[in-house]
């Protein structure tokens, strides 16, 4: 029942949001709905519900972690969005909006909840074709979110996002068909059944299927060299949306890959898959490092940092052993921290009205000081400075790499991490230090205090707190849950 509720509640409220004309009701409904989603997620932790709809929807040991991340992020984002939407509507008050069937904000809030729905479908589905439908639906639900600003640049980003992801997902569909062929005797695509029958699968077809699905979902996940849509979409989307794309969507796409990986493990293809994971993981890290180094745009910089972290997570899965556990921790840490950073980036953007790093300085001294402080804290966490969860995760992954005697890889990995740290440090320090820039004019009281507005800071602060606490105090129940999930994903 809970499984179905988790999907139905955001679905229907999302559809309803398109029709609601009152701004206050609409904004609060998002928060209420996300809150309900989070509450239901907590309930799922307490008591695993039975599979629903012929076993198509169920939360197993792996997906519950993804569900929790997504749910927490959405709740934080919805709180942030209230503030964000209010600001946006104030800003565009003078612009005579063209009469449209749905107002811009209604489309945004509706799609926001539909985005949550589709991601829940991806996470919950045990049927691989349904999972595919869910991933495709996330693209479609999030495209209007990216196009929120209705500018040329956001349109360009939306187009690239739509096209590249659609092609990637089409490739994944072919992969699913291959999987069905590999599964010759049993036409059912249910995960549990496939794992049970994995031993009798047709190996060449399964290999091809994994490759196609890896590239297909990898496109959506932002694995280099298929990540090209990611910086564009992340930089042009509203910051709330960037946070969700980076923190939740990429993970969901990764879940798609992990599902197939589970089947491949059962079919005895683990080594083949791990090689792919390691290669593309390392490639993503190196790609990201190269592009972060001279990045002039701070939102794009964050996007490349997401590519880097997706690379780390993939690498960890590829190494196997305890590194899988590290990957899971890194995923949680990255999602929380990156979302928080994007919220702050949204604050900075709405105050300075520029995404150029060179035009911003003195964040911690000016009116934006709290945002500035959080910006620095977020930087330290995301680059893996102890004592954060991400440090802990990277440490485990490195240890595993050394244990397996992948010295060359370890070297490249460390060098890339160092480059990322240097590149990001330069950007963050130049933005936060120096004399403060005072934005005068516009003479709006509301704007004056925006950077410090309580609601726009709390989600980030909370997320950062959680991310740090992962490194300081790791609750036993979470550790146990992660260990079980890691075991199912070929780890220890």
């Amino acid at each position, binding site marked *: 029942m809970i499984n179905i509720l988790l999907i139905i509640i955001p679905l229907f409220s999302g559809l309803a949001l398109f029709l609601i004309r009152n701004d206050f009701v609409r904004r609060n409904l998002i928060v209420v709905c996300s809150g309900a989603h989070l509450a239901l997620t907590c309930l799922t932790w307490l008591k695993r519900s039975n599979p629903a709809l012929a076993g198509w929807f169920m939360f197993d040991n792996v997906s519950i972690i993804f569900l929790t991340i997504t749910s927490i992020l959405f709740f934080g984002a919805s709180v942030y969005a209230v503030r964000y939407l209010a600001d946006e509507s104030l800003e565009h008050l003078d612009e005579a909006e063209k009469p449209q069937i749905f107002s811009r904000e209604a489309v945004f809030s509706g799609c926001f909840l539909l985005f949550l729905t589709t991601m829940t479908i991806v996470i919950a589905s045990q049927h691989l074709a349904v999972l595919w439908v869910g991933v495709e639906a996330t693209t479609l639900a999030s495209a209007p979110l990216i196009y929120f600003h209705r500018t040329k640049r956001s349109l360009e980003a939306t187009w690239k996002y739509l096209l590249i992801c659609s092609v990637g997902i089409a490739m994944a569909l072919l992969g699913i068909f291959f999987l069905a062929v590999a599964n010759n005797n049993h036409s059912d695509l249910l995960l549990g059944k496939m794992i049970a029958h994995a031993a009798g699968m047709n190996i060449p077809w399964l290999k091809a299927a994994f490759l196609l699905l890896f590239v297909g979902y990898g496109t959506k996940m932002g694995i280099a060299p298929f990540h090209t849509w990611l910086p564009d979409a992340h930089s042009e989307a509203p910051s709330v949306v960037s946070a969700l794309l980076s923190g939740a969507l990429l993970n969901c796409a990764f879940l798609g890959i992990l599902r197939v990986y589970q089947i491949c493990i059962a079919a005895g293809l683990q080594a083949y898959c791990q090689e792919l994971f390691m290669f593309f993981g390392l490639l993503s890290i190196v790609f990201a490092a190269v592009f972060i180094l*001279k990045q002039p745009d701070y939102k794009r910089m964050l996007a490349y940092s997401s590519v880097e972290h997706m690379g780390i997570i993939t690498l960890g899965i590829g190494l196997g052993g305890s590194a899988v556990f590290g990957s899971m921790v890194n995923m949680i840490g990255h999602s929380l921290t990156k979302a928080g950073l994007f919220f702050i980036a949204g604050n900075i953007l709405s105050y300075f009205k520029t995404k150029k790093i060179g035009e911003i300085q003195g964040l911690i001294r000016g009116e934006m000081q709290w945002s500035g402080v959080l910006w620095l804290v977020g930087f330290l966490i995301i680059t893996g400075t102890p004592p954060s969860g991400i440090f802990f995760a990277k440490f485990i992954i490195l240890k595993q790499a050394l244990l397996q005697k992948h010295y060359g890889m370890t070297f490249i990995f460390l060098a890339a991490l160092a480059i990322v740290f240097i590149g990001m440090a330069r950007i963050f320090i130049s933005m936060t230090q120096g004399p403060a820039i005072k934005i005068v004019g516009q003479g709006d009281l509301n704007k004056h205090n925006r950077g410090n507005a309580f609601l726009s800071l709390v989600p980030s602060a909370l997320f950062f707190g959680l991310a740090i606490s992962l490194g300081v105090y790791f609750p036993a129940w979470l550790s146990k849950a992660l260990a079980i999930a890691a075991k199912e994903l070929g780890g220890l």
Partner: protein
Amino acid sequence: MNNLGDFVVIIVLLMNLMMLSSSRIRTCIRIVAGQGILIGCMPLLNDFHLILPGMVISASLSIILKGFVFPWLLFRAVQEANIKKEVEPVGGYPLSLLIGVMIFALSFWLSTRLVYTKPLVSHLAAPVSFATFFTGAFIIVSRMKAITQVIGYLLLENGIYLFGAAFLSEQSLLVELAILLDIFVAVFVMGIAIFHISREFDHIDTQKLSELKDSIISKQDI
């Protein structure tokens, strides 16, 4: 060997090549629509006693969508967005055509690597579906207009559908419908995007969509 199946599959292949060498957007839309109809018929080419009512439903739905609804949407887009009628490939038509042939050779090689023992509608179904898939992908990267990219995407979907129709005829109906619906929405959303692009940029040349990019050596230093 099913002769009719072979014929249909080879016509699908020739349509790919036609697509690569035709210069008019309207022709391209017609080709992709015709291909959609042909591929939609594929599941019905099996032996008669294997045809289930569900297959007829999904086949007819896909024929209606791919053969009539999508082309209608695309034609509307061409008309309303005042799109120029030339396809404008990167590198010219003869080169595209030769690449199309190479794609087929590659697909053929790929299909020989993947062994499948059960009888199929046509022994050429696998290579042609791969070729259609890759041709679609090639059209997406080599054509400059947003609308031709959507056509390429449809071609790619046709390839996948052909594969599914040939190899997985007994797949569950619900899933197939969901997939069709998804593609439908995708084309719809892309159609909307095309409208917006043509309004904002006065053209739908995606080469002009190049404000967002990174280079390793950025032009302006921080």
